[in-house]
Structure formats: C-alpha cells, structure tokens
C-alpha cells in the first residue's frame, strides 16, 4: 500500500483538489470547538485539534434523516403510500477522524449491518465513506482507547491513516478505498525511513501518555441479572439530570426514533437520534413504563454498553474510549468509574 509524506500546505491543497471526486469532511474550528464540516464555502480544515466535540457518527448516521415521503392528497393515485426519499450516496471522505471514532463505526456496524437485517441508510452511507484517520500524538486526559481495544494510532476500520510529523503528514493507505483516495491526491513524496521511524516514535509516546486503568476483563463472566441488581445504581445515577448529553455525543450510541412530519398535503417519515435517558423512550401506550425511574435509565445505558453488548457480540464493550461523555457530562458521571465498579462487582 502507498505511503506518502505531504507538507502541511501540500496536504491542504490536495484536499482542495480531492473535492472533485469526494464530498470532503474535516474538522473545522467552530467557536471554541471543532466540528466535522464539508470543506466548502471557504471552510478550512484544522487538524491541530484534540477531537471534535460532536462525534463524526452523524456523517454516516445523521441526527435526522428522511426515510420516506408521501402525499396526503386524495387526488394523487399514490396518496398515503410511502416512497423512498432520494439520497446522496456519492463518495464522501472523512479526513482527520480519530482512531477511537473509527473504532466506534466498527462497534455500531454490528447493529446496523447484521446477518438478519441491514439498515439500508447506515450501510449505504458507510459504504460510500472513505475514512482517513489522524493518529493522536497527544491524547486527552479523558482518553482511554487503549483500555477498550483501541490505540491512539490504531488502523482498525480506517481506509488511510495520517500522522502529524510536525511540518508534514505521513499518509498511509490501508485499504483499496484508502489507496484510491491517496492516489487521487496530488503532490507528496514516497514516505522515507526517517518519516516512518518518526511515526513509530510518536505512536509509542502517545501510548505512554494514556495512564488510566479501566479493566473490562471480568464483565463477560458476570451474570447479567446480578449486575442489574447491583446496589450501586442509585448512587451512580444520583446526580444524573437525564439530559442525554452522553448519548448525543457518544460515537457508539445508535438508538433512534421514527416520526412522521407533514406539511400541507405532503409529508415525510423521518428518523431521529433518540436517547435511553428519556422516559418517553420506553413509555407504553397503556401508560406503563418499564424504565420510569432515573436510575433504571442510567443503568440501561451502562449495562447496554458494558454488559448486554459484551454478551451479545462476545467481542468487547460498546465503547471506544473517546472520553466525550466523561468530558461533557454536566454532573461528572464517569463511565471509567462505573466500568470499574461493574468489573469488580
């Protein structure tokens, strides 16, 4: 596979040209935070960033997505019959995604693309996407990717990986999609040994910087009903506001709602991100609600990520260690502490 080194200026120029073939998304400074945005209308990428506040999951799984459209006009022969909404599945490239967020796509893929059912929207958005990662030279204090099967320089799920060498980027193709992307980028020189050597050193140094310990080794052998009945859930949930920030920011939270919206004599069926933090999420028509208490909803979130998912897929937790929920929870609920409690219970 191709590996090239681009000066930073060359790389920005190359991305500009790649917009001919791809819808190119990259982190753009947006107020105090970075957000993945399409590089259009003069938007400039800024790869000197810790991570985006919102995860890039919305590029494959939009917060709100039209599924179907319909007419409510009785004079139309197809009134009340749902039709597929037109979609743009042309190639898109997400450039500068952190390895934890790429790992997260692989975690949620098991849900959206399973042997029985394929979610056509997620699958087609994902297939049209080329993921160009950016190794983390300086992980944040809230990062714990190495504890949940990841790595600050992990290539897992990526089509290409960028490494910031200071004045330049080393860009390595990892898949055919990544190779095609890199071959479409003009400029750059074949990577030399010095560049590759420096990348190795940066990776080793990044790994060293993640000191936190979040053991997950005993979760699989626990009995789910025992953990469910554990005495600590009310305490864990005590300060929770059920605001849903954690699920909104989480790259591995996938729950959605389906709603119809109408405007005059036409309408759309839309799916929207939803959250297990909200009581309406499970409210029955009868008024019965299996999770009407706050601690039940908080327990559901952690049990799903750290036990039910583990049991269902037998391949690790439903968390990529990005640390967003830790960083942005308004009452400092910390999944790393909850995970320790569950693992030690």
């Amino acid at each position, binding site marked *: 596979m191709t590996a090239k080194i681009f000066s930073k200026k060359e790389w920005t120029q190359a991305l500009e040209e790649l917009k001919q073939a791809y819808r190119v998304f990259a982190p753009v400074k947006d107020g105090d935070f970075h957000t993945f945005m399409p590089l259009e209308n003069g938007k400039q990428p800024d790869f000197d960033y810790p991570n985006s506040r919102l995860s890039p999951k919305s590029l494959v799984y939009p917060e709100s997505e039209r599924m179907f459209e319909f007419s409510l006009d009785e004079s139309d022969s197809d009134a009340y019959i749902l039709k597929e909404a037109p979609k743009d599945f042309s190639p898109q490239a997400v450039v500068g995604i952190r390895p934890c967020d790429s790992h997260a796509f692989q975690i949620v893929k098991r849900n959206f693309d399973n042997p029985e059912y394929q*979610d056509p929207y997620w699958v087609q958005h994902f297939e049209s996407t080329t993921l160009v990662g950016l190794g983390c030279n300086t992980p944040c204090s809230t990062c714990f990717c190495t504890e949940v099967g990841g790595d600050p320089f992990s290539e897992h799920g990526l089509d290409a990986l960028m490494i910031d060498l200071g004045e330049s980027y080393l860009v390595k193709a990892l898949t055919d999609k990544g190779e095609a992307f890199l071959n479409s980028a003009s400029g750059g020189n074949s990577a030399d040994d010095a560049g590759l050597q420096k990348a190795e050193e940066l990776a080793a140094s990044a790994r060293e910087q993640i000191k936190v310990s979040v053991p997950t080794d005993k979760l699989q052998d626990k009995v789910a009903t025992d953990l469910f009945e554990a005495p600590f859930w009310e305490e864990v949930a005590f300060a929770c506001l059920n605001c849903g920030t954690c699920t909104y920011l989480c790259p591995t939270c996938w729950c959605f709602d*389906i709603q119809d919206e109408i405007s005059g004599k036409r309408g759309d069926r839309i799916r929207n991100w939803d959250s297990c933090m909200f009581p309406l999420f499970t409210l029955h028509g009868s008024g019965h609600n299996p999770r009407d208490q706050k601690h039940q909803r908080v327990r559901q979130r952690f049990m799903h990520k750290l036990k039910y998912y583990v049991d269902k897929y037998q391949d690790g937790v439903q968390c990529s260690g990005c640390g967003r929920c830790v960083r942005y929870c308004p009452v400092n609920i910390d999944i790393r502490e909850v995970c320790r409690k569950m693992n030690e219970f």
Partner: protein
Amino acid sequence: MENPYLPYPVRIDSIVTETEDRNLKTFRFVFINPEDEEKFAYTPGQFAELSIAGKGEIPIGIASSPTEKGFVAFTVNKTGVVTTHLHNMKEGDVMGIRGPLGNWYPWEEMEGKNVVIIGGGFAFTTLRSSIIYMLHPDNRPKFKDITVVYGARNPGMLLYRDELAQWEQRDDMDMHITVDGTDDPDWKYNVGFVPAITEDKITSADNAIATVCGPPIMIRFTQPVLEKLGFPPERIILSLEMRMKCGIGICGRCNIGDQYVCKDGPVFTLAQLKQLPGEY
C-alpha cells in the same frame, strides 16, 4: 438495497367493532400489490407494524391465521395517536403494513402435545390466530388435546364472540369462556377470574405446553396456578409487549437485557424470562 422499513401498501377491506365499549375493532387488510401477500408469509404469534402516512406506526399482533387466505387481520385497541386515527378510518382507505416481525409460538415443539391456551382481555389476538391455525384440518392431527381458557371483564368485552360460540360447540377442543362478572341472567358460560377458571378446568400438565397472553395482573396470578399443576418454566410460553419503533432489533428501545422483544421475542418461555432482568 432492500429496505426493511418500507411498508407494503394495503387497503382496509372490513372493520368490525368487537367490544361494547367500541374501543376494540378488527381490521381486515388486503394487499394492494397481490405479490406482497406472499412476501408477508407469517406464523401465528408474530406481529407487524401498522403504518399510517402522517401519523406513524404501531406494533400489533397478527390476529388472522396463515390458513386464512386473501387478507390479514389485526384487532386494535384505541389508545394513542395512530390507533385513534385508525379507529376513525373507513373501509377502502389506504395505509401500510410492515412485517411480519418477531418470532412465533413454538409450533414444532407443540406438535404431538396437549396445548393449553390461556388468554385475557384484548391480548387474545395472536391466540385467535393460533386456534384457527391449529383447528385447520391440515394441522389439527398434529396436536393432541386443545384446551382454551379465555376471559374478559364482562360478556360485552369478549373478542370474537361468534367464533367463541362456535368453538364452544366443537368436540375437538375444550373451550372455557369466562367473565369476571355479569348481570346477564342468560349467561351460560363461566363466571370467575382466568386464574381460578384455569385451576378448575386444567387438570394436568402431562405432555402439555401452556401459552399465556393477557394483562400483567392475569399473568402474575396464572403463573403459580400453572406451576402448581406441574408446568415447568420451559413449557410456559408468554408473549410480551414493549414500545417499539423499527421492529427489527436495530433502533434499541425494546430490550430486556441483551434481548430485543421485537426481534428475539415477542414470544419467550418463562424459563428464558427468568434469565433476564425483570425490566418489562
């Protein structure tokens, strides 16, 4: 790419008001594209999403049997936005059905066994599907004794009253109709709660499987009766309800532990439920 969220267009063929409070109606649907009927091949115990453009979808158990051709039927309780709208629709109106969804009653396991069916209130719909299915001449020889206990609050709240009366007359099944109470002096069936009638009428758990559908309070009091009769949890079958959206185990809201009621259920044995968190 196949889209599992796209409903089949259907037309409402007939509407029957089932109960005296007019809160339960049975809707028969005919597929607008005849080939969709074959694609909608179902087994008793499954459910589907009824879809009304502009209102949304609701998961409802299939009340017709696959042995009944040319239509599918659902009995719907008027509760929320979609069901209230549906109750105001008329014959000939166009809407959608998405499915069939979920698993079904364990028919292979029930073959060669005595089948006990216990239902209460408007949870009798997939049990009606099951009874029609078992009584079909092609299927009846596969099962031994069929015993049904079905109760409602009063005679006017029983579903499928004409069929109940016919089943009562048959000699190839034992039908026990009951009501919690009635002031009708001509009422010729049982009076009493479903658990009590079950205890009275079901005498043996030998080679038998019991399927129970009803309100939570009925299930709670029927379960010890069945256990006393000697039904092990593996041979007590329950069908659960849950708020659902996708119906295919993807949208994430109807889980009990690591099981999704929409895809891994709605039919579970009591033995399976005992392994799961009691969050339903």
